C-alpha cells in the first residue's frame, strides 16, 4: 500500500497546528535557572566532565554537522551548543570552579532562552559531530542533557511540548490511543489478516507507533505479515503499543520514564522474551538503551528494532523472501538513533541483500550517514523548518550521487522528513520502508 499523500498533507497540517495546542508550562519565571541547574548537576558524570574539560576549540565538529555545512553559520557549531552546560559545569562542578567563577558569568534565564534554538530546533542529536572530534567528545549526549535542563525549566518548544504533554497526560500521541489502534487492527482483520492483540501471554510483544497507525499503515501491515509468516507467538497490546517516546525527544524525563515503563511493565506481565520496536528511530534507544536504566535494573527481555529483527531472522534462515531483482536500484538511509546510536548497520543490509536489490550506498553511509533533518523531534518543531529543509537538500545531494531511484529507510520520522522534502522540491525519488519491502516480498509457502 503506497502512502496516501492527501493523508500525508493532512498530517503535515496537523503538525503545523501543534504550537496552538501546547499548554503553558508550570515553571514560574524565577525558578527556571535553578530547575535547569538541578538537572545539570544530576546528569553531569565523569564522562561528561572529561568531555567538557577536553575541548580544544578546534571547530572540527562544525565540519561534520549538516546544519553548519548547509548554512555556514558559526552559531550552529555543535560544541557551541554546549556553552550553557559548560558554563554551569565550570562555575559549579569543575575541579577549578573556585578559579573559573572569577571569569565566568552565572547562567541566566535569557541564556536558557537563547539556548533553546541551539539544542532543539538546530540539532537532531544525530551524533555525527562526535565522530570527527579528535578528543572523542560525545556532543549529542550533552545536547540531550541541555534539553533535559531546558525541559525542566519549562522551555520545550511549543510544538514538541504539545506532543510531550499529550503523551504525559492522556498517554496518547497525535490523538492515537487504544481505540485508534483497534480501528487499525479491525481494518487489517477486514482484509484477512490475523492480528493478535491483548493476549495474556506471548513470547514477543510488537510495538507500533502513531505514525504507522495514521500514516504509514503499510509498515504496520507488513509487520503483521512478517510475524504471521514466521509463525511465532506474538501480540500487540492496547496498553503498550506506542514506541514513540516524546519524553526522550523533549528531554522531559518523567514522561520518558512513564512511556518506557508502560512497555516494560506490560512486556514483563506477558512473559515476553522479546520486544520489537517499530520503524521509529528514537523509539529504539528509548527502550533498547534507556529502558533498563529507567526501570532501574536489567530487563528480562531483549529489545530489537524491526530492521534488526528482520536481518537476524533472514540470516538465521527463518525468514525467506523472494528476490526483487537488481533492476530495483536503492540506497539505504541509516536512521541515526538506530545506526550511529544503536549499532544496527549490518542487519538492514542483510535484508536488502536477501531481497536481491541493487544497493548503491551514499558517499556518507552507516556511521557517517547524514541525518534526514527531522530527528530528535525536529519534525514537530515549527521553527525548525528551515533546518529540516537544509538537511534534506544535503541528503538529496547524497542520494543523487548514487544510481538509486528509491531511498529505503527504517524510521517513520525519517520517512516523513524525506517525503516532505520530496514533496517540497518535486523530487522524483521514492521513499520506502524496509519492513514494507520485506512484507511485500515474503516467500510463498
Amino acid at each position, binding site marked *: 500500500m503506497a502512502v496516501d499523500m492527501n493523508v500525508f498533507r493532512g498530517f503535515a497540517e496537523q503538525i503545523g497546528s501543534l504550537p496552538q495546542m501546547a499548554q503553558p508550562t508550570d515553571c514560574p519565571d524565577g525558578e527556571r535557572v535553578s530547575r535547569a541547574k538541578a538537572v545539570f548537576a544530576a546528569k553531569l558524570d*565523569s564522562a561528561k566532565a572529561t568531555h567538557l574539560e577536553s575541548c580544544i576549540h578546534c571547530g572540527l565538529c562544525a565540519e561534520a554537522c549538516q546544519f553548519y555545512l548547509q548554512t555556514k553559520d558559526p552559531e550552529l*557549531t555543535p560544541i557551541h551548543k554546549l556553552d550553557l552546560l559548560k558554563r554551569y559545569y565550570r562555575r559549579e562542578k569543575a575541579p577549578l570552579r573556585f578559579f573559573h567563577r572569577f571569569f565566568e558569568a552565572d547562567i541566566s534565564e535569557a541564556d536558557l532562552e537563547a539556548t533553546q534554538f541551539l539544542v532543539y530546533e538546530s540539532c537532531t542529536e544525530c551524533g555525527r559531530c562526535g565522530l570527527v572530534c579528535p*578528543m572523542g567528545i560525545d556532543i549529542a549526549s550533552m545536547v540531550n542533557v541541555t534539553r533535559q535542563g531546558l525541559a525542566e525549566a519549562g522551555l520545550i518548544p511549543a510544538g514538541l511540548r504539545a506532543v510531550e504533554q499529550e503523551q504525559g497526560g492522556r498517554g496518547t500521541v497525535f490523538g492515537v490511543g487504544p481505540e485508534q489502534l483497534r480501528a487499525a487492527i479491525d481494518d487489517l482483520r477486514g482484509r484477512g489478516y490475523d492480528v493478535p492483540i491483548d493476549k495474556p501471554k506471548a513470547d514477543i510483544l510488537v510495538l507500533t507507533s502513531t505514525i504507522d497507525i495514521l500514516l504509514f499503515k503499510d509498515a504496520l501491515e507488513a509487520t503483521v505479515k512478517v510475524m504471521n509468516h514466521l509463525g511465532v507467538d506474538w501480540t500487540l497490546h492496547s496498553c503498550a503499543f506506542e514506541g514513540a517516546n516524546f519524553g526522550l525527544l523533549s528531554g522531559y524525563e518523567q514522561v520518558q520514564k512513564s512511556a518506557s515503563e508502560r512497555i516494560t511493565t506490560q512486556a514483563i506481565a506477558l512473559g515476553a522474551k522479546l520486544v520489537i520496536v517499530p520503524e521509529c528511530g528514537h523509539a529504539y534507544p528509548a527502550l533498547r538503551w534507556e529502558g533498563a536504566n529507567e526501570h532501574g535494573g536489567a530487563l528480562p527481555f531483549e529489545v530489537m528494532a524491526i530492521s534488526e529483527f528482520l536481518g537476524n531472522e533472514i540470516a538465521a534462515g527463518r525468514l525467506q523472501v523472494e528476490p526483487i531483482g537488481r533492476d530495483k536500484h536503492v540506497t539505504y538511509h541509516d536512521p541515526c538513533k538506530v545506526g550511529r546510536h*544503536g549499532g544496527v548497520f549490518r542487519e538492514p543490509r542483510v535484508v536488502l541483500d536477501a531481497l536481491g536489490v541493487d544497493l548503491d550506498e551514499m558517499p556518507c553511509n552507516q556511521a557517517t550517514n547524514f541525518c534526514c533533518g527531522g530527528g530528535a523531534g525536529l519534525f514537530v518543531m515549527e521553527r525548525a523548518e528551515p533546518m529540516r529543509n537544509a538537511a534534506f537538500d544535503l541528503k538529496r545531494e547524497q542520494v543523487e550521487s548514487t544510481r538509486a531511484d528509491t531511498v529505503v529507510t527504517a524510521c517513520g520520522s525519517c520517512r516523513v522528513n524525506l517525503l516532505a522534502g520530496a514533496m517540497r522540491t518535486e523530487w522524483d525519488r521514492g521513499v520506502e520502508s524496509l519492513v514494507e519491502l520485506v512484507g511485500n516480498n515474503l516467500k510463498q509457502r
Partner: protein
Amino acid sequence: MSFAEFVDGPFWYFSAAVFVIGVAWRMFGMLTIGSKTDYSLPRGSGTTGAIATNVRRFFPRAAFWSRIKLQVVAGYLFHIGLFALLFFAAPHIDFYREKVLGFGWTAMPEWAFILTSEIAFLGLLLLILHRLMNPVTRRISRRGDYLGSILIFLVMLTGCLALARSYEALRVLHFFLAELLLIYFPFSTLIHTFTFPFSRGFSGAHYGRRGVSV
C-alpha cells in the same frame, strides 16, 4: 638573588609544583565525579571500544578528510615537532638528567633539531592562523586559547634562539617562559594533553557497548 638564580631556583620549583598539583587536581576532580550503572544489555565490549577509539581517533575518517585536512596536517606537524623537541633536543635531555630524572638518553643531531623546529613552527603558525581566520574557530575560541598559543610560540622561539647556548640571557628567558607555561597549563585547554585518552575512552566505551565503532 639575580633574576637567573630566581628562574633556575625558586620559580622553577614553584612552577613545577603548580603544574603537577594543578594537573593532578583537575584530573582527579573530573574522574571522580562518578557515573551511574548502565543496566542495558550490551551488544559489544566497552573496554574494547575504549581502546579502539583511542587508536582510531589518530586517523580521521575518510568521509571528513577533505574538510578537515588542513587542521589535521597542521596539528600533526605541531605535535610531532613539539614532542620531538621536548624529549630529544640535547639541552632538554641535559635538563631532565640534571634537574628531574637523574638520567638521560641520546639526543637528536642539530640538523634534526632545526628541521623539527621548523616543522613545529609551521604547524603552530598554521593552527594560529586558522584559529584567527576561520569563522567557526573565531566564534568558539576563548582568550585562553590565544594566550596558550602565544606562550608556546614564545617558548619555542626563545628555545631556538638559545640553542647555541652562547647567550645566558636567552636561556634564562626561555626557561622563564617555559615556567610561565607550566603555571598556565593546568588552568587552560592545554590539559587535553592528559585528558584525551580518557575523553576518547569514555566515548569509545559508551558506543562500544552498543556495538558501534566511533
